[in-house]
């Protein structure tokens, strides 16, 4: 259980709550229910929650599947820095947003779901990953174990939202693997030793490990 990133589930739950708030709000507004202005609020709150929660944060371990087209919202959400990065703030924000929608029956479901999402965000703040350090199988080389040992428990931040950045594409170096042919000829024994008696044998073998006739004269640089 120590490795579960609750924030991922909280994110799904909050996104669903946003959609439910929008739906409930539309129903209340369109149907002109009593106190329908809460419905109008609910639509606005729902849209805000959906936009905030749409970009999925990066998982600590493993690869994260991006939602379709989330990079535009990632850029916007990143701008707010710690306000959006910190899940504690998100939890409080969701709790506050959900309260006004609780006054109308049409949107009360959205309230309940958003409150649950807020609860799960709080859970990921207060379930410290120090559990990982305590479990016996934690590899000593793992970064998180070392991290937890050195930080005081109360200050363990738990999880936070990290944007998924596209990896900078390595531009393929054109011709990078083409290596220049050697500029020096391979070392050879002096010219006298190169001439072998069995020239017919050489002709029969073809291009093999024997001395070869160079088509262009090669200067021997060995002194």
């Amino acid at each position: 259980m120590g490795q579960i990133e609750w924030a991922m589930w909280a994110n799904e739950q909050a996104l669903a709550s946003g959609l439910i708030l929008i739906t409930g709000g539309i129903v209340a507004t369109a149907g002109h229910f009593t106190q329908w202005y809460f419905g109008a609020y609910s639509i606005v709150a729902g849209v805000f929650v959906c936009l905030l929660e749409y970009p999925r944060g990066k998982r600590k371990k493993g690869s994260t599947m991006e939602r379709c087209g989330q990079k535009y919202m990632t850029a916007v959400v990143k701008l707010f820095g710690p306000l959006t990065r910190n899940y504690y703030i998100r939890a409080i924000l969701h709790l506050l947003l959900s309260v006004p929608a609780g006054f109308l029956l049409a949107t009360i479901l959205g309230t309940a779901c958003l409150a649950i999402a807020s609860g799960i965000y709080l859970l990921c703040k207060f379930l410290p990953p120090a559990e990982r350090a305590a479990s016996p199988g934690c590899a000593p080389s793992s970064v998180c174990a070392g991290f937890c040992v050195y930080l005081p428990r109360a200050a363990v931040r738990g999880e936070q939202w990290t944007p998924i950045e596209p990896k900078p594409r390595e531009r393929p170096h054109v011709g990078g693997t083409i290596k220049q042919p050697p500029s020096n000829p391979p070392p050879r024994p002096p010219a006298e030793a190169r001439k072998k008696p069995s020239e017919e044998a050489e002709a029969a073998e073809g291009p093999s490990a024997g001395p070869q006739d160079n088509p262009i004269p090669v200067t021997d640089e060995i002194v």
Partner: protein
Amino acid sequence: MGNWVVNHCFSVLFLAVWLGLNVFLFVDAFLKYEKADKYYYTRKILGSTLACARASALCLNFNSMLILLPVCRNLLSFLRGTCSFCSRTLRKQLDHNLTFHKLVAYMICLHTAIHIIAHLFNFDCYSRSRQATDGSLASILSGLSHDEKKGGSWLNPIQSPNMTVEYVTFTSIAGLTGVIMTIALILMVTSATEFIRRSYFEVFWYTHHLFIFYILALGIHGIGGIVRGQTEKSMNESHPCKCAESFEMWDDHDSHCRRPEFEGHPAESWKWILAPVILYICERILRFYRSQQKVVITKVVMHPSKVLELQMNKRGFSMEVGQYIFINCPSISLLEWHPFTLTSAPEEDFFSIHIRVAGDWTENLIRAFEQQYSTIPRIEVDGPFGTASEDVLQYEVAVLVGAGIGVTPFASILKSIWYKFQCADHNLKTKKIYFYWICRETGAFSWFNDLLTSLEQEMEELGKVDFLNYRLFLTGWDSNIVGHAALNFDKATDILTGLKQKTSFGRPMWDNEFSKIATSHPKSVVGVFLCGPQTLAKSLRKCCHRYSSLDPRKVQFYFNKENF
């Protein structure tokens, strides 16, 4: 195309029947509540949203009945076994049980949304007519007494003008159970998204048990009788056709019409879900019983790259190639069951699975087995499940392509084919197997290497080296590996795998492979089997089309996408 039709026609038919039933039930219930005289007065207050809510309620009952059935895997195994006379294509549909479960869940979500929206409008209408003082028919009907002594024949559940809809929702059985059910449903759906399921399985597994609350709440949802229709007796005395117009005179002594009396619609959800709930309870009891049967672990092998092989024995266990089992380790987690493909052949006297680290549970399991000085943890086994991949054995030439983890089921198939070949099984049609194994790094599946090495050796001993032709493709390579391989070019065995067959780097060029196979077997029927990603399936299917000869007597490639 013909292949697709044959493989999928039953699924398409099944889904069409299911959708058709949904539409039929919806329309039927809608018309009943929209037209019936029994609900004439109810409609006067509520309008068409009454019929909408009732129609979606009926669909919800129907789908809630269906949703428990696809997850009764022992029941499905039983069906698969008893219907062995049915064609394999038909029985293979049982393998798509989880897909059907998800579709039914989506339908439940849709109808829940319709049902809730309709009831929101209904409650609003009831509230308005309760507060109305204009003496309209709606307000008179709403004023009908809730007093049990006077018959309790009320219509409007909102008892007084001061009562809010929120109060009625949370104090009536229907409202409260509705809220509980919906919240349980939403939590189940958000924790069951593919991302959460694959990354944090425990969250999904434990949250999904909220279905118990859903089913219980559904069973008692209609008990309050909040949907009211006119009683038979009242209809005989004062039929709405003649009495509705003269509603101001209902209380007059000389009027023919009397105040209408209403009764609640009895709860009917329990009738729909009783049988599936009983079946599901039997399924869980059966799973528990099977899990209590003793499983003897005969061998534990720790392969490199943290892969654990468990060889086990269980009384009465019989498997076929390509099936999977669920295992549970009570010392790690009491409730979690995880599926693993069987990697042993049916001809062997044990069954085995290979477990790779893929999350919390597998990591804990491997760690538990690594402790050399403590007792081996107890394992419980349920299964085997899944349609057997017997098709592989029906082809003269079989092309097996395994990508990454998809190579696991081929272990069972290759071993089985080898055993049959050794015993000169005359039923074995297969004369040649081409096996392609594509993976990013061989480390994770080095246990499969051992299998291929032993197969290589055995084939050499029997002098039948050309029965199995396999090629390994390493897609995650870099220039270091290639350089190393180039330097060791002359060695007899491959430096990465130790097999006689050299590892190739990059992805296979399927055109070359298929044309080579087509030229070597100009008159055979070749079966192509894949366990891997969708993109690979597409390219293989294209190659099959391209290299199948137009002449049906010459080489034909048949693509089978097996769901292992």
